[in-house]
């Protein structure tokens, strides 16, 4: 590709990324949330993290594409977060389709969290669990949607 075309393409990518409104949420080892994803081919999934304040208002924090089997990230302890997973599929006749599912979580300091995300044959599942590294006890957390949030104070 010639230099001016490359520049143009680079600018289009930058512009496109800016227009999508999505921010990359930081990932890396050491986070308190481990996400495992199992997807059908052709399904694009992403995890969107929102901060939830005492009045149950959400503030978008960023997005993690679930394009790898596992990814780790950090959620602020003691702070309620609303995790939204979107599944995007598309086909020639079926067009593009998007389904989302959300879960509230308030991580406790020192605890670790696992989020298993699965999409197989048009059926999806989201399983969240909490474990205490000291006692090595793990418990499944019920999936609470945003309407389960109750304003405090």
């Amino acid at each position, binding site marked *: 590709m010639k230099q001016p075309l490359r520049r143009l393409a680079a600018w289009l990518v930058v512009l496109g990324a800016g227009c999508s409104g999505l921010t990359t949420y930081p990932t890396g080892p050491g986070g308190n949330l481990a996400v495992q994803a199992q997807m059908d081919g052709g399904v694009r999934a992403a995890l969107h993290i929102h901060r939830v304040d005492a009045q149950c208002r959400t503030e978008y924090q960023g997005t993690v594409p679930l394009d790898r089997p596992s990814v780790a990230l950090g959620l602020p302890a003691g702070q309620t977060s609303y995790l939204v997973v979107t*599944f995007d*599929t598309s086909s020639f006749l*079926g*067009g593009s389709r998007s389904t989302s*599912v959300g879960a509230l979580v308030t991580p406790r300091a020192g605890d670790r969290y696992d989020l298993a995300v*699965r999409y*197989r044959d048009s*059926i999806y599942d989201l399983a969240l669990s909490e474990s205490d590294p000291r006692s090595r006890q793990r418990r499944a957390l019920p999936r609470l*949607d945003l309407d389960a949030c109750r304003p405090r104070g």
Partner: protein
Amino acid sequence: MTTRKTLQGPACALLALLAGCAVSYPQNAQEFREQAPGAMFGQKQTFEAKRPFREVAKTFRTKAPECLNVSVRTVSQTSNSYQNILAIYKPTVLVSAQKAELHVQRHFQSGVLVPGKEPEGGLYVLVADATPIDRNRTRVDLYGPTRGADALIRAVTGWATGENVGCPDMTKN
């Protein structure tokens, strides 16, 4: 939970054709049970779940509100037309000592004109009845369409058998 899908022309043409047919719809779950097996695109499936009736009923109670309280927006755009359809699904679970019923209804909030009288909550899409056979087995009768609700039927079957308790992608219905 909100889902969104973008359909192409053929599916929209089918919706438009269906909207043109004035029919009388089942007004309650019992009428749906009576009419679905004999309807052109209706069916009744029966299977045995190797789980106690109490567990099947509990799974219906848990999963139906979690997975089926959804709205699906369908946007279709061609060079000379644009459609924006909002479908709202409503699950109902009724449990007694001898029977657990799951009803799924769909109401088109916008974009589709439903000819004829629509029951409160929307048109019936699926009815599932679970009844105990013995302490560890449950009979399940599923009434629904032969096409267009595959994901929903597979999900409800999974809830009954306990083999898959995921949620159906309602954009695929």
